[in-house]
């Protein structure tokens, strides 16, 4: 008991030492750097409204930096704006603009170096090279930030939220637009990406590599140059995301490359050139998803195995499915296909005739992309019809044995 009292007393005395430092034109500290120099661990810096041009601000103490009415921290297109090099830092309510541009050093709006428990919340980041960069960090939170850039070339811009070699991150409720990749994860594990909106980025809305055991839930990826790419990763969970309007020559709603043991559920893929492209992946459970109005619903390469596609809706896609070989090691039973023309005598809502989701034309096009010239030609429609009755070119075991008669409620 004695020890406990002593401990709380010590803790209390430490806490009571924490000061609040006011920064601003008419306040004791004129610049943030000045205040940082005067601060100690667990102090709070209140940044009052104004324009701060202080070059590179380095935070090496566990302080909270809180902006009032979005004070502007300007990097003047020369510096990295804020560098966090201490754990337990909070950066909140700042407007960080115009970081430098350099492909070797990757200057950022806010960059976190090898730290723990850093929180970056409610900031606005405009026209930075990289907006937020977490490097070798643990248990950090990036929440409710508005990130925007207006670049036109991939080389001239970095990523919105860039995370490298970190773990236990929480990326929540951010809005990112106009960067190269909206959110970038490389060697990041046990993290969650939740409710973000990533829009009109030049390359990918989300770019994700070598990042095991992560979840992304409830995000919206819209009008990105090439959609979302998830690569070389195990144990990914993707729930309730929306992939929309990723339209272009090489755009995918979702690109899965070398993914294994993952779950994809309740996602919506609408108006993408290719809804999902799956390559070299295995043991993926995909269900309760809706693929609507895509050019290709799913392109699945013959190098995939144990992909279990069930209880999904395929609605008004030009091609529901395409594949590049005759080997089928995946399961497509129990989906709804709007092109299914079979019947259901016993009224159990499961069609009595198996459905072949591969159309002849999609097979031809996969073999010879230039055959796409005949797209929408009358002859192709005829060939497709005859193939449906007597399959010859399409792999026989590419089949849904239990197609649903009505769309599933998702």
């Amino acid at each position, binding site marked *: 008991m004695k020890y406990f009292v002593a401990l709380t007393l010590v803790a209390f005395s430490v806490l009571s030492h924490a000061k609040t430092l006011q920064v601003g034109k008419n306040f004791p500290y004129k610049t943030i750097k000045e205040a940082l120099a005067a601060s100690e661990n667990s102090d709070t810096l209140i940044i009052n409204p104004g324009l701060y041009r202080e070059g590179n601000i380095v935070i090496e103490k566990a302080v909270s930096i809180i902006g009032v009415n979005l004070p502007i921290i300007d990097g003047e297109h020369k510096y990295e704006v804020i560098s966090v090099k201490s754990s337990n830092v909070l950066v909140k309510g700042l407007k960080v603009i115009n970081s430098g541009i350099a492909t070797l050093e990757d200057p950022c709006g806010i960059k976190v170096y090898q730290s723990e428990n850093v929180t970056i919340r409610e900031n606005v980041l405009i026209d930075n090279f990289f907006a937020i960069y977490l490097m070798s960090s643990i248990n950090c939170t990036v929440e409710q930030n508005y990130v925007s850039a207006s670049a036109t070339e991939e080389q001239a811009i970095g990523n919105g939220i860039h995370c490298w070699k970190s773990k236990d991150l929480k990326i929540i409720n951010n809005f990112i637009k106009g960067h190269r990749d909206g959110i970038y994860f490389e060697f990041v594990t046990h993290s969650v990406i939740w409710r973000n909106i990533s829009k009109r980025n030049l390359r990918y809305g989300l770019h994700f590599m070598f990042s095991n055991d992560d979840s992304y839930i409830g995000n919206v990826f819209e009008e990105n140059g090439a959609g979302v790419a998830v690569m070389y990763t195990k144990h990914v969970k993707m729930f309730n995301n929306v992939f929309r309007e990723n339209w272009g020559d090489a755009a995918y709603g979702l690109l899965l490359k070398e993914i294994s043991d993952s779950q994809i559920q309740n996602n919506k893929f609408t108006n993408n*050139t290719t809804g999902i492209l799956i390559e070299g992946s295995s043991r993926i459970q995909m269900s309760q998803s809706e693929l609507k109005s895509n050019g290709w619903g799913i392109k699945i390469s013959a190098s995939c195995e144990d992909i279990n596609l069930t209880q999904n809706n395929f609605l008004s896609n030009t091609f529901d499915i395409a594949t590049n070989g005759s080997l089928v090691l995946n399961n497509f039973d129990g989906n709804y296909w709007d092109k299914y023309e079979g019947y259901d005598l016993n009224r159990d809502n499961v069609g009595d005739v198996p459905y072949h989701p591969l159309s002849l034309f999609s097979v031809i096009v996969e073999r010879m992309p230039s055959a796409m010239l005949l797209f929408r030609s009358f002859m192709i429609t005829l060939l497709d019809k005859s193939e449906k009755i007597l399959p010859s070119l399409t792999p026989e075991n590419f089949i849904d044995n239990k197609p649903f008669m009505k769309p599933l409620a998702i």
Partner: protein
Amino acid sequence: MLRILKYVIRDILNNKIVIAYALLLAVLSWSMFSLEDSSSKGVLSLLNIILLNVPLVSVIFSTIYIYNSGEFIELLLSQPIKRSKIWSSFYLGLCISLIVAFLIGAGIPILVYSPDSTGLMMIVVGVLITAIFVSLAFFSAVFTRDKAKGIGFAIMLWLFFALLFDGLVLFLLFQFADYPIEKAMVGITALSPIDLSRIMVLLHLDVSAMLGYTGAIFKEFFGTLTGMIVTFSLLGLWVLLPFWFSLWRFKKMDL
């Protein structure tokens, strides 16, 4: 010439088939646009119908009409009128009435639902296809005095361009799959007015992204102003050449 043109048009209108054709197009177009949830999808579905029906009606109706007007043509020839004037008036009369029917039947709904460059392209393509297939009808009618042969040939022409040509293209694609034939393929496709029109409209739609590499080549060439000029002059050639040939034959023909 104007008087003959007037006769021809009045005669075609009396015939009522052209009115039925306009009605058919109208029903198809309005229902297509109201069935599909977006206008670009409507355009896409309508494209297939237009590229199938418009050539068919144009070529067959025109061929039969020329054969049926054989006696009238002979009567006109007994008058001091140039043969080329008679032949051209017949051509213009048929073209104008079928084009007007197309514009009323399909043109109006297209302009209502899709008043953009795609819609405009559709209409231009429809008009050109009509003119081309009327021209082809003259070509087949002038060949022989045997009605059955002439109409048969007209149907064969339609079948060839609507169906067989695509089959041929597919066959060539399979045969030469190992070679870089994309550019050649673009050239070959341009040989069929129906394919050329189809791709021109497709390139104006979102789906053009699905056309892939070959589509990109197409777009690179036909998407530019020179490409447009080339396309339209190709289609123009398809209008002029068969007609010129038929005119040349008609002038020398012993009736």
